[in-house]
């Protein structure tokens, strides 16, 4: 191909994503040590199994399998009727057994999908169960290892290379984070490392259907926005390289947020020959239709289903519904408020509006406070002067003490008259109008 032609080529990105999520089970994947390692004294949550001592054997935690299946089913995967654990062999100081128990040929779940907001489908290749490694830390000259994290259950979700933009990657990753929280299978906190993203990205000439011969893996990136930046940087870098005629090869890169660049990372030696074989210490897992039905029946409502319900049943707009279902906590708050509000004849739309547009802090504002303020504001619209006037006259007759106090200069005393009118109106009168009217009546 002549160089002039090469320059005119446009490239389109091919991006796939791997997400690792740590499950919030009580104990580890294959042993009975506590799985919560965060900020614990190093090497105090270990046993022969997760330390990889000679002679120790794994034993499967059923709860982890259930949570993995829950994720798989929520992503519309097929659950494998026969599934196996396998050994992924490589040497690294944080990998105590010299192999990770993972899944390769027989994953628990495969062929799922997730729909993005613009309607495009992300195909999910697999959802499989594995175990986490220990944690390497650098202390001065030394590299040290803490094995508290070793053996914590991890689920890996691998997409097909279906993404073409960094924004779609972000939306997908955020949707999965939201899903994990809805399913209550993980805290899915990126900063703590509960959830980790790895993208592989390569470019191909527009119109080409086969996959490029290389791919760059972006690893060890611990926030959504860094991932977006890294992908965008890579799209630019790779297209420049390709335009120069450089032949790109398999590579692992990280993100340097100070320099705003990706940089090559040293790979595990022989990283691509993991010598997978069936884990002989663990019998096969067979999942029946009954078990799948059971798990499906325990599945909580998912964000998309909740959105649909808010739109169809409560008349909330799609964009508001998306925000209200961002997390399970917000959704619960909204729904409880709506229940109370309907009894007070306040519409769900008004509740949504209050939460979304007035920036209500759901941590600090109780549902009752929220609804009361709505109730009061709604009454302001009803300003039937005659009705209020007759309640005000009644209040004056019934509270001679307050009236005389007011007339003697205690201006605050008017508030008890306002309160009296509000009670008569069952909170539906506008307190300001009531006050003005009372002042007028008492002045006369």
């Amino acid at each position: 191909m002549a160089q002039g032609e090469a320059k005119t080529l446009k490239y389109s990105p091919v991006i796939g994503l791997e997400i690792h999520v740590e499950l919030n089970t009580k104990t580890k994947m294959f042993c009975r040590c506590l799985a919560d390692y965060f900020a614990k004294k190093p090497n105090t949550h270990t046993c022969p199994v997760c330390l990889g001592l000679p002679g120790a054997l794994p034993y499967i935690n059923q709860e982890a399998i259930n949570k993995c299946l829950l994720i798989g089913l929520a992503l519309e995967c097929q659950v494998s009727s026969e599934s196996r654990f396998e050994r992924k062999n490589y040497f690294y100081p944080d990998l105590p057994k010299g192999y990770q128990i993972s899944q390769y040929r027989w994953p628990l779940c495969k062929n799922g999908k997730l729909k993005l907001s613009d309607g495009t489908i992300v195909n999910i290749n697999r959802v499989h169960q594995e175990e986490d490694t220990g944690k390497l830390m650098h202390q001065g000259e030394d590299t040290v290892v803490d094995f508290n994290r070793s053996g914590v259950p991890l689920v890996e979700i691998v997409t097909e290379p279906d993404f073409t933009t960094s924004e779609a990657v972000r939306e997908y990753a955020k949707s999965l984070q939201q899903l994990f929280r809805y399913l209550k299978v993980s805290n899915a906190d990126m900063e703590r490392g509960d959830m980790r993203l790895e993208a592989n990205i390569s470019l191909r000439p527009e119109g080409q259907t086969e996959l490029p011969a290389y791919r760059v893996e972006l690893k060890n990136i611990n926030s959504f926005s860094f991932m977006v930046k890294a992908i965008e940087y890579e799209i630019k870098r790779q297209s420049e390289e390709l335009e120069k005629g450089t032949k790109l090869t398999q590579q692992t890169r990280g993100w340097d947020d100070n320099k705003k660049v990706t940089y090559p990372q040293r790979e595990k030696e022989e990283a691509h020959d993991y010598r997978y074989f069936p884990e002989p210490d663990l019998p096969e897992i067979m999942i029946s239709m009954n078990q799948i039905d059971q798990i499906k029946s325990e599945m909580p409502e998912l964000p998309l289903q909740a959105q649909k319900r808010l739109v169809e049943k409560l008349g909330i707009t799609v964009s508001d519904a998306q925000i209200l279902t961002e997390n399970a906590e917000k959704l619960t708050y909204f729904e409880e408020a709506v229940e109370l509000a309907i009894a007070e004849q306040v519409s769900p739309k008004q509740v949504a509006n209050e939460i979304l547009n007035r920036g209500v802090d759901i941590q600090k504002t109780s549902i009752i406070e929220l609804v009361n303020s709505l109730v009061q504001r709604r009454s302001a619209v009803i300003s039937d002067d005659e009705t209020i006037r007759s309640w005000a006259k009644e209040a004056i007759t019934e509270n001679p003490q307050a009236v005389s106090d007011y007339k003697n200069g205690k201006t605050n005393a008017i508030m008890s008259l306002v309160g009296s009118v509000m009670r008569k109106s069952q909170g539906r009168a506008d307190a300001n109008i009531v006050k003005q009217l009372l002042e007028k009546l008492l002045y006369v």
Partner: protein
Amino acid sequence: MIQIKKVARLANIPITTEEEEMYAEQLSKVISYIDQLNSVDIVGIKPTYNISENTNITRDDIESTSLTQQQALGNAANIKEGVFVTKGVFEEK
């Protein structure tokens, strides 16, 4: 043909040139013996990975006592302040 150097690197086994020759000879003898498996008719035969014929052997999510930090570190050659010390894992930055 078995590439001893590559296999040794994968296996994380340090070998000398002398050993390399010896292993090459011994292992190629063993492998050519093993190649008689090629004459077995295995069409339609399912592999046996686990002889126990158990399935779905799992446990409940219930904790039991872990080792103490001292026990965990007790056999290590190089430790400090509750952690294992290892050779530096080099990372370019």
